């Protein structure tokens, strides 16, 4: 095979067919020049993947909402909202002093878990969760 060139990154990422993958592997074991290029690509990839995740400033994303329910489910929705609010207050107190971000993140997680629970229960599900059930 000729020097694989641009295929090298796809090789590193497992994005080649089995046949191509084998050919590039064989070539790399025989060609120092291409091995050096593979090392450079791997280093570039590592630098990019090592970039820290940047957190959006507050207000950029919509606040995680308590899932809304159709009217006939209002009682359940009201219960869910107050339960979530109660937990949120407790979480807020527990996290007071750890900084705004920690509180925000935690409420986020909280709301997600809560949503997951609502989805799991078909009786009060309003999101497009897995349909069906008995």
């Amino acid at each position, binding site marked *: 095979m000729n020097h694989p060139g641009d295929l090298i990154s796809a090789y590193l990422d497992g994005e080649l067919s089995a046949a191509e993958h084998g050919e590039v592997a064989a070539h790399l074991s025989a060609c120092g020049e291409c091995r050096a290029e593979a090392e*450079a690509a791997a280093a570039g990839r590592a630098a990019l993947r090592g970039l*820290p995740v940047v957190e959006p400033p507050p207000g950029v994303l919509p606040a995680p909402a308590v899932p809304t329910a159709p009217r006939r489910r209002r009682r359940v929705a009201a219960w869910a909202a107050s339960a979530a609010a109660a937990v949120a207050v407790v979480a807020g107190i527990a996290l007071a002093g750890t900084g705004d971000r920690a509180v925000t993140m935690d409420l986020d997680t909280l709301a997600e878990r809560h949503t997951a629970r609502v989805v799991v229960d078909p009786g009060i599900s309003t999101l497009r969760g897995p349909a069906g059930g008995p």
Partner: protein
Amino acid sequence: MAHEPVPSWEEVARRYGRTIYNFAYRLAGNHDDAADLVQEVLLRVRRGLASYRPGSFEGWLWRITRNAFLDEVRRRQRRPTSPLPDDDRTRLGSVPEPGDVLAEYRLGEDVQRALLDLPYDFREAVVLCDVVGLAYDEIAEAVGVPVGTVRSRIHRGRTMLRKALS
């Protein structure tokens, strides 16, 4: 993949908002542009969901996102202001621990600066691959180019970045 359910707008915001923000931040290099872009993308998603048909949702979403980014870039080129890249340490998600973390921040800044020096096509390809985490075929769908072009842009983007950092 062919029959993913269509998520609600709120789900899109919750599930992808942070990733879209990071995509924009890495491409633009500053928080103001990233924040503007996220708002614009979520608006377009909200409008577009009505006509969206189940298929590759990620392909659809990232096509909207990169098109919104390009529109924003073009809009700004008409009235050029060049915001300086922010400093990573101002708004990191995790609380930094003292000690060797400072060195990591500097490295992040170096990488960000080198990234901003890459030509746009290469920068976009490596950010979609290595920051957003899309597969090559998803990138091809989002960008509207053949997979072969994606391979080439990713490889050249990474090696150019490596060279700039050495």
